[in-house]
Each structure stands twice: as structure tokens, then as C-alpha cells.
């Protein structure tokens, strides 16, 4: 249900401040922890908005009749609807509006690349002004609800007793589970790891997305009747056939893209050269930096991270927090081409991360114990634009540099894990091992739906969530038609 733009309160609210005056207001600045302080701990860097700040920022939104911002949001959140509720102080109502479309607003408000999505399409930008801080406001409303202890447990339709299995407990799986539970399905989520949350838990660090936020959302799903079975690798522990024999009627495969890519250059298997997945999993999921934890992690002093995406930024900032004297981003293109969110790059710089752009590793050199001690870097320059539209890096002949490192983290992307797809006979997959689906996220096997990174390759939290919701609708339509 979308908020009514013509509701009397909203009409009135619009009139309280002239649109021109609204656009003249300055964008609020979210408080952040001091870079020097925060680069030694895992406290969340962004401190959130105060109620006062949020209400002030909400005034900047002119409640457009044709809100272009919504076109920038992959799940078309009713942006002015929730923002106007913040402006009038109805924070819980704002959270409710968000919940109509997003299962994880506290997560998206923190990790969405807003600057290229909703905020990029905000009317303010077209007028040469700074966009309304939609992400910050989204986070504010969701946090307010959580902290108020008055979490709204969505009302679920009476149980229809139909069992649906969801494979993978990342954002795609969680959002699909929520929607299906609301429709009255008997939903079970199977997760290979010992914890629920997918990349939100094992990948994105605490200082950007505290685990408790994910846990609270999962608790809501449990209260809605969703069952979680961890330590269950579908395709190995159980197969879809086993589950069908147990009465499961439909499946949503949301197993993500968890397979790390390497560059296959000499020395890549030396000790202390590791994937960002391994590094982040050790630190985030296994809590390896905590002396209480049995899982070890190496505290590198000269750490190089290969890549320029969010994963690279998360790794480099983690290395800094674990005591690195030098933590460096090594990226083969220039800063303009970096796929990481602007905010992450900014935060990393403030924390003292070095950026070695237009450098590409060609070899790692080890010591007598097989541990990495140096890396050889090829310097690059930008050439013609390539297929992705970004200018292609080309080698500068002979420009090779050797630098000392004691740890290298490879963050050059991930591929889908083949375990689930290869265990389902007849499932159509692409040459990149992603699952082929139609517009309702249905695969070549009618009872199998899929979404998130397993369909898109590495994408974003909000796209994964959108897929989960679309799949829930698709599954419902499919099962209802069959009856």
C-alpha cells in the first residue's frame, strides 16, 4: 500500500514550506567517528542522524508529484511517502512505508550505492543541488523503529500449509522468505554456513554494517514463522529431490556468488596471499581478531589489496584496523573507474589508506618460508574505452616497480558457486555459471526460481532483495495457478 500523496496531512505539510525554500536548505551531514579513532576499532563509522537532523533533512524533499528518485531505486521504494512521515515526526509510520517494499531498510540505508541510484535521480541534482539524503533518512527510520523496541511484525495470511524451500540466507533469500511468509506459505531457509545473513554477515564488516542489525531483521522473520536450517549445504547435505520428497513444492535458489577469483599470476599461492573472502570471513564470520576466537588471522604490516570495489575497500579498511602500518589499494585503472561507493573511498582515504591506481600486480615474491615478501607491479595508463565504457588500462612498457608487502588480499571479483546449480539436473545456466531465469525469476525448471548474485553475478544488496520479492510473487502465482 503506497502512502497517499493527497492525504490531507501531506497536502498541508507540503504547504508549510515553499518548494523554493526547501531546495535552498543545506544537506545535513551525518556524524562520523573521527578517522584516527575509528581506524583502530570496529565501531560503526557512520553515526546516523538525530531525530532533529532527520526532520530537517526531510524538509528538503519537495514531495514531487512525479518523484524521479523512485525510478532510481531498484525496488521503487515510496521515497517521498516515507520522507514526509519523517518530516511530520511519524517515524514508526515512515518505517512501515519502507517495510512495504524493502525487507531490510536498515541494511539498504547503510550499504546501497545511493549516489548512483535513488539520490542520482533526485530532482535536486537536476537543479544543480545536492540530492536529498534518502539513504541516511532510510537508515534513520529503520534504526528508530528497531531502537524503539516496537518492531512491526508484518501480519501474515493464515497458513496455507504449502512448503517452499529457500536456498541461501543472504538478502535475496531473506526478502523472498519474508514475502512468502506474509502470503501464508510454510517457508524454510537452508543455509550452508553456521550463521544467517550471507554477505551481510561474512563479507561486509561491522564498522559499516553491524551484525546486530541483520540479526534483528532475521528475528522478525522467525517471528513470522520462517524456519532456518543452518549447516545445510543444499546439493550435498540434501538435494532438491530429497526436499521434494519431504513435500516442498517450490524453491528459490539464492546461493549468491561466493567463489573468489584469482589472477593466476606467479606466486599467488604463497603464504599470506589470500582472497578477500577468506580474509573477511576470518575476521567477520569467525571473529578471528578477537583473542577468544580459535580462528587465526595474520596481522599484516604492509598490506596490499588488489581491486577497486566495495570488497577491496572493506578489506583495506579492515587491514588498517588490524594494525597495518601501510594498507594500500592496488588498482589497474584510475580512481574515476573504481566501482566502489564514493563514500567508501572517502572513508578509506580519511583513515590513511594509500591508493596506488594504474598499477597491476604481475608477480609475488616469497621468502625462504614461502611467505610473500614483495610484489612486482606493472604501471598502466588509460587507453581507449572498452566494452564496459570505461577507459581500458594498458601497460606502460618497462615501467615495473617492486614494493615490500607481507600480506596481499585479492579482491578482483567473485563467481557463482556451482554446488547448487550443478546438483539440479537440467537447470539452464550461462557460461558464467549464473542461473537463467525469466522475468518472474523462474528458471528452466518450473518449480525452481532463482535470484540475487547467483543470477546476476556480483551485484548489490538491493537488487538481490528486489529479486527475492519478485520471485516470491512469481512462486505465489505459479503455485496458485497450479491449484
Amino acid at each position, binding site marked *: 500500500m503506497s502512502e497517499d500523496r493527497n492525504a490531507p496531512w501531506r497536502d498541508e505539510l507540503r504547504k508549510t514550506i515553499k518548494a523554493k525554500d526547501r531546495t535552498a536548505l543545506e544537506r545535513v551531514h551525518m556524524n562520523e567517528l573521527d578517522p584516527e579513532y575509528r581506524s583502530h576499532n570496529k565501531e560503526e563509522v557512520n553515526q546516523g542522524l538525530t531525530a532533529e537532523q532527520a526532520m530537517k533533512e526531510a524538509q528538503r524533499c519537495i514531495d514531487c508529484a512525479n518523484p524521479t528518485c523512485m525510478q532510481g531505486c531498484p525496488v521503487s521504494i515510496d521515497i517521498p511517502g516515507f520522507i514526509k512521515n519523517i518530516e511530520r515526526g511519524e517515524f514508526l509510520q515512515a518505517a512501515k512505508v519502507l517495510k512495504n517494499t524493502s525487507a531490510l531498510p536498515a541494511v539498504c540505508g547503510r550499504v546501497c550505492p545511493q549516489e548512483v541510484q535513488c539520490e542520482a535521480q533526485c530532482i535536486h541534482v537536476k537543479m544543480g543541488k545536492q540530492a536529498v539524503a534518502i539513504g541516511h533518512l532510510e537508515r534513520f527510520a529503520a534504526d528508530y523503529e528497531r531502537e524503539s523496541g516496537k518492531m512491526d511484525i508484518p501480519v501474515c495470511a493464515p497458513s496455507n500449509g504449502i512448503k517452499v524451500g529457500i536456498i541461501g540466507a543472504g538478502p535475496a533469500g531473506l526478502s523472498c522468505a519474508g514475502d512468502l511468509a506474509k502470503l501464508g506459505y510454510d517457508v524454510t531457509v537452508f543455509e550452508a554456513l553456521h550463521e544467517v545473513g550471507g554477505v551481510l554477515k561474512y563479507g561486509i564488516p561491522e564498522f559499516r554494517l553491524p551484525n546486530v542489525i541483520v540479526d534483528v531483521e532475521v528475528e522478525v522473520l522467525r517471528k513470522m514463522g520462517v524456519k532456518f536450517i543452518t549447516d545445510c549445504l543444499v546439493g550435498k547435505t*540434501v538435494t532438491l529431490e530429497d526436499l521434494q520428497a519431504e513435500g516442498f513444492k517450490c524453491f528459490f535458489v539464492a546461493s549468491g556468488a561466493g567463489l573468489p577469483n584469482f589472477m593466476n599470476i606467479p606466486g599467488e599461492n604463497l603464504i599470506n596471499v589470500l582472497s578477500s573472502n577468506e580474509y573477511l570471513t576470518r575476521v567477520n564470520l569467525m571473529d578471528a581478531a578477537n583473542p577468544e576466537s580459535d580462528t587465526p588471522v595474520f596481522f599484516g604490516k604492509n598490506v596490499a589489496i588488489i581491486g577497486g570495489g566495495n570488497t577491496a575497500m572493506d578489506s583495506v579498511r579492515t587491514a588498517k584496523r588490524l594494525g597495518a602500518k601501510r594498507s594500500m589499494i592496488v588498482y589497474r585503472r584510475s580512481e574515476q573507474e573504481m566501482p566502489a561507493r564514493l563514500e567508501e573511498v572517502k572513508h578509506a582515504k580519511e583513515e590513511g589508506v594509500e591508493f596506488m591506481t594504474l598499477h597491476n600486480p604481475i608477480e609475488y615474491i616469497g621468502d625462504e618460508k614461502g611467505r610473500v615478501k614483495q610484489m612486482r607491479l606493472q604501471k598502466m595508463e588509460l587507453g581507449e574505452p572498452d566494452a564496459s565504457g570505461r577507459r581500458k588500462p594498458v601497460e606502460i612498457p618497462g615501467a615495473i616497480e617492486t614494493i615490500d608487502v607481507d600480506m596481499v588480499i585479492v579482491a578482483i571479483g567473485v563467481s557463482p558457486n556451482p554446488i547448487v546449480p550443478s546438483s539440479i539436473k537440467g537447470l539452464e545456466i550461462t557460461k558464467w555459471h549464473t542461473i537463467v531465469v525469466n522475468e518472474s525469476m523462474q528458471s528452466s525448471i518450473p518449480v525452481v526460481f532463482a535470484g540475487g548474485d547467483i543470477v546476476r553475478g556480483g551485484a548489490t544488496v538491493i537488487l538481490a532483495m528486489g529479486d527475492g520479492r519478485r520471485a516470491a510473487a512469481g512462486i505465489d502465482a505459479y503455485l496458485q495457478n497450479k491449484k
Partner: protein
Amino acid sequence: MYFWAHFQQNTIDIMNKIVKKEVFSDKVVRLDIEAPLIAKSRKAGHFVMVKVDEHGERIPLTIASSDTEKGTITLVVQNVGRSSAKLCKLNEGDVIEHVVGPLGKATHIENFGTAVCACGGVGTAPMLPIVEALKKAGNKVITVLAARTKDLIILEEQIRQYSDEVIVMTDDGSYGKKGLVTNGVEEIINREKVDICVTIGPAVMMKFVSLLTKKYNVPTVASLNTIMVDGTGMCGACRVTVGGQTKFVCVDGPEFDAHQVDFDQMIARLGAYKDIEAEDNCKAI
């Protein structure tokens, strides 16, 4: 099905309970663990990842055998460090927080003819299901059981049950013949035609078995015990070089053509956390 019956009643936490414990020596125990789904789907060569408690790390352990009726799997654990020690200390009735599997590729079993199974130390545990499967497929199975000393020879009786011949070797000569696993293997190769060799044990041992069988052109499979984190292909901690290519032991293995494996690299990588672990283990004491 057993599992679902409990699941429906929300009593799923009764899973992973240790129903039987047997102490083979002060460093080696056998645990039978309630894990019905894994018991049902596992094959010879599969392993599980085990996380003992809240602060535990995830460690890989081979499924030595299973009982589908009782819904249990058997693990044989050697106490070599912090996590294995925690596991060895558990008793009947205790619950292991997390057990996931079966993982890895199952052993390729066929009737090769004569098979030599060369195992050292705790490599005997993962070898047991392979010996059994090879025997059942019609092979003549000769097993070489090797250890530093008599007390470390485990599962001899179970191995004998499925082997046509067992040769026991100890470094100190306290039991069986005095010598290394390679002496036993060479003796067989010199005596009769061997069609396949399977080797499991410490990396150094597998390296030497592999060098030996390469000399005699005996096809050899090694089951690699690299360091792992997730065990599902997600992290790459377990990677090794096989035939010049990087492979993930947890999903592409754990068994590989031994003659193609870069054992020196593997041995180095196994030492990756040695210093940190040693420090931690001191702290723990």
C-alpha cells in the same frame, strides 16, 4: 524421515550429539555423532566441517564411516592443536555446535585390480572407508599402516576386515616392521603388479609415497589435508597447485593425482598459521 520428525517438533538441537566415544590412544579418539542427513548422503572420501563451540574454528574431518539406521557418522580425530584438542575432550552426550557436510568429491572407486593403500598416522581414519569401498568393488587390497610408534597405530582391526593383507610399519620398530611407509609400499611393488596406490597422511609422507610410485609408474591418488575455512569453495584457503593449475581442495578434491600435486607448496602453506597458532596454544595453557 528421522530428521524431519525432529525438525517438525523443533527439537533440531538434538543433532550433532556424541552418542559414542572410544579412546584409541591419548592423542586419538573416535566419535560417533548423530547427524542423520549427512549419514544418509555421504560416500567414501567425503568430509565434514566441524565447529566445536561459540569461539571454535571450522576444521575439516573425514567421515570414517556412517550408520544410516542410527543416523550417525564416525569421526576419528587426532589431537594436534587447539581445535582438535577441544573435540577430543568432549564426551558422550555432549553436542558439537556445528557439523556440515558431506563435503568434497567422493572417491572414484572401481575394480582397478590390485590396490595399495598407504596411510600414515591419522591418515588411517580417512583411509578406512576407501579400503572398504575398494574391497567391495572387487579389488585385491593391500594396506600399509604406518606410524611413529606402536601406540599410534589405530583402526588396525577395522582395516584388516577389508584388506587382503596388512603391512604394519613403525619408525621405531616397536610394532610390525621397522621402517617408513615407503619401505612397505616399495616391498609390494617389487613383489607384484600394483594397479593403483592411494595415500593419506602427513603431507611430507604423501610427497615421498608419490615420488616412489612415480618412479615405478604406479598411478597414485593422494587425499590432501590443507587448511580450510568454509569447506564449500568460498574462500580459497585450501588451494593447491595440481598439474600447474590452482585447485580448491574442498570442492575439487580432496583427492588428486598425486604425481601432479605440488607438495612442497602445500607443505609450506600448511605452516601458514604455525607461529600464530603456537602463540595461541601457549596463551591457552
